[in-house]
């Protein structure tokens, strides 16, 4: 009897394990994210997981025996993931780490050899590489060896330096192989390492709702409380605490301007508030609560806001729905 129970239990556990692995849903929050900010960027070619010449194993598990390039999948012997990006587009660190090497002296579109790159070592022992970057003088590699970088921090701008057939970013993930005594390319897509499959940029959000979707009417010198909620559609958790990377609602258009509607609860003249919750994981909804003070003379105004990962990067304001608050100040 007990043997039967153990067999049934073992079978159930095995099925659960298979489900967990197969679903790809067991993803660690704040794992590697896509190394750029524009969620519309799609992949050109992934890693060839089969090192045999003229035989390619792409990230979906399909094998090709022709040595031909297959768009969106793979080309033979490819060791990284290629992302088409216009020249001088922003490139971000895929995870917290330390810069261990970089090259910024090639021309942004200089053909041949490696070109400009940044190499980052991460706490899990892995390395990430970002190839074909723009020249340092054009912001291609604004980093130094030994610099600590946060996930989502801009570490360069894209280019077409080195061996390059059209401007793109070559992102490579390297894992130490004790048997080979060397770093070997890993496939971040096959490993589903992009925090939320099939991949998220570090910072992205979508408007959900707010306390008053119409015009806020404020009596002069009085303060009202307003809140707005956004869904975290990016790959990094939003946090209230810490130093760099805290998620804040700040003035926009122009960025970080001193707001005439600043209330006493604002951390800065340009920052209305940090996210209310201690942490908002990807796909979660975060609320931002803040005061609006009717300081200006009576009249009709608008105040525009955007989200930012403090000290790292602004969110895409258009993807927030161009968020702003119409405000009417009365006597």
């Amino acid at each position, binding site marked *: 009897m007990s043997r039967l129970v153990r067999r049934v239990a073992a079978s159930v556990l095995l099925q659960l394990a298979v489900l967990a692995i197969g679903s790809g849903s067991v993803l660690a929050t704040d794992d590697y994210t896509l190394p750029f900010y524009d969620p519309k960027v799609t992949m050109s*070619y992934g890693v060839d997981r089969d090192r045999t010449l003229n035989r390619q194993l792409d990230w979906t598990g399909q094998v090709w025996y022709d040595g031909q*390039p297959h768009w969106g999948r793979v080309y033979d*012997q490819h060791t990284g993931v290629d992302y088409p990006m216009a020249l001088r587009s922003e490139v971000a660190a895929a995870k917290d780490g330390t810069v261990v090497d970089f090259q910024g002296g090639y021309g942004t579109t200089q053909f041949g050899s490696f070109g400009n790159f940044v190499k980052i070592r991460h706490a899990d022992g892995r390395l990430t590489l970002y190839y074909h970057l723009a020249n340092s003088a054009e912001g291609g590699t604004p980093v130094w060896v030994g610099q600590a970088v946060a996930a989502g921090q801009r570490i360069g701008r894209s280019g077409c330096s080195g061996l*390059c057939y059209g401007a793109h970013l070559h992102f490579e993930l390297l894992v130490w192989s004790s048997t080979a005594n060397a770093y070997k390319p890993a496939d971040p897509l096959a490993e589903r390492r992009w925090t939320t499959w099939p991949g998220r940029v570090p910072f992205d959000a979508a408007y959900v709702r707010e306390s008053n979707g119409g015009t806020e009417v404020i009596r002069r010198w009085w303060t009202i409380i307003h809140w707005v909620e956004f869904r975290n559609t990016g790959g990094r958790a939003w946090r209230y605490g810490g130093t760099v990377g805290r998620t804040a609602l700040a003035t926009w258009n122009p960025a970080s301007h001193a707001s005439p509607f600043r209330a006493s609860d604002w951390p800065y003249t340009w920052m209305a508030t940090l996210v209310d919750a201690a942490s908002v994981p990807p796909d979660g909804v975060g609320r931002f609560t803040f005061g609006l003070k009717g300081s200006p003379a009576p009249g009709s105004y608008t105040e525009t806001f955007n989200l930012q990962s403090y000290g790292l990067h602004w969110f895409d304001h258009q993807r927030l729905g161009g968020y702003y608050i119409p405000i009417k100040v009365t006597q």
Partner: protein
Amino acid sequence: MKARLALMAIVVGGCSVAGTRSPPAEGSPQASSAFLSSGPSGSAAVRRPLPSGFPIMPRAAPVPMPRDDPGLIGTWESDQAGSAAYDFYVEALPAAGYPIVGRYPGGEVAVIRFEVADGEVWQMVAHPTPEGGVAIEIRLDRP
């Protein structure tokens, strides 16, 4: 660190044979009727013709096409950088009336998928030649 595809040009194009280049289209960035009618060695009946006026990268020389690849419509080689071919066709295809439906630049290969008449999709494929130049193929669409 990145793998090199030294043999890829031969495998993919099957046409990177030194000394077989035809004279380049003289100063014209478009396919000439002379080039089309002269037809490289593999012009089988099933091979689709290149439309007259199709953009061809300046300084690119046509090379013979293999008989066993009917999906190949035209192929050229140039001593220019690979990015030059990609950048040229990104501009030239829409300008010549061929809307681009997908761009796939890469480290050692580039594919541009574009629409021809009746919504059919073709590809421009650029990849290295053993001599360090770029091979350009116009071919029927493939995954």
